[in-house]
């Protein structure tokens, strides 16, 4: 399959039913994408396909063929959302953070609190109680 990951075009040999999550972590060594539940409930594995957030634990490799995939590595480390999560305590253990940040990226600039709550409803966090996450996104 051929796809563009974080702006880089790649050719990958993978079973078409391999989870995109495993393609990223195993075949591309992009381990920033985390596995939480493996059943679509927690959002830790969220990445963007053509700019749209999806759970990579539920997406077969075949469905990523020919698309543009963005993972947390693609934000480069100095993205305003990444800096805000550090500055405002949006990350504690960090497992949910890559997924949270990518779901927030998909909201575009300056989302309202309601937009943030709807956009992040599929992302669970066991540590922060969410308000620090919402604050980080609003301050980014």
């Amino acid at each position: 399959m051929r796809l563009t990951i974080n702006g880089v075009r790649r050719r990958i040999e993978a079973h078409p039913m391999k989870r995109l999550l495993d393609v990223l972590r195993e075949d591309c060594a992009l381990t920033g994408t985390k596995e939480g539940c493996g059943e679509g409930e927690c959002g830790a594995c969220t990445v963007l396909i053509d700019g749209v957030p999806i759970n990579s634990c539920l997406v077969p490799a075949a469905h990523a063929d020919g698309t543009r995939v963005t993972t947390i590595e693609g934000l480069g480390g100095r993205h305003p959302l990444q800096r805000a999560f550090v500055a405002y305590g949006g990350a504690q253990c960090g497992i949910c953070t890559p997924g949270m940040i990518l779901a927030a990226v998909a909201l575009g600039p300056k989302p309202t609190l309601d937009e943030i709550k709807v956009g992040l409803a599929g992302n669970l966090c066991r540590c922060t109680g969410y308000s620090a996450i919402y604050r980080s996104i609003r301050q980014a």
Partner: protein
Amino acid sequence: MQPSISRLKLFQPSSLDEALALLRDEGPLVPMAGCTDLYVALNFGTLTDTRFLDLWRLDALRRIEARDGALSIGALATHADLIRSALVRRRLPMLAAAAREIGGVQIQNRGTLGGNVANASPAGDTLPVLAAADATVVLRSAGATRRVPFTEFSTGYRQTVRRPDELIVAFEIPPVRGRQAFRKVGTRAAQAISKVVMAVVSGDSPRIAVGSVAPTVVRARRTEAALASGASIDAAQRILIEEIAPIDDIRSTADYRRRVVANLLARLTSGASG
């Protein structure tokens, strides 16, 4: 961790005709749409099937359009497509409302209407809406097209009349007269004990459909008839409670559900947003 996938075979047709020919010649194959149900089972190792048919690239099945007065929604339309569609919001707002309550955005971006219906879970959120809207399920095989009234599509818990060589290609919804309302009570995680889903059309010919209280969605025809002939809401509530027969796993649970259903009927017919 995903269990071993090397034994799995995926057919990847590039057109609907090719997909239907594969179903006929290579079947039985499990159709694969947004995978939000299938991959949960696959990741858990509970899926025993080994041969799959990928529908995701069949863009012709994604269309939402008005055709011959009816609203036609392709089976592959995602919940996000339904929420975004001006046509759906105008003609079938209760379907947009149901789609908005499904999972989080990641699930809405992949899960499809066809998958929700084909899955035939009693807790499927779009099912009461399609039942109350008098929708028709359009099924295609290599040889033929078949139209089945939605209320006859599911025959029991996770059972449907779809034949192995058929795909759901679309849903057709005639114009709906009257005010539409949708409400889901209880979370999915708690669905086994407390979920109730209800879609109501109020007006001259009221329509009421309740999900998650029986193995399939229930159209409350007697309650509808009572309301149409001017019954009071109290009387209608009593008829509805008799009519739906909630899954009676634990006594108090059934009682709780009957109360929820009765309250929802009052709220959804009175115009409150629920």
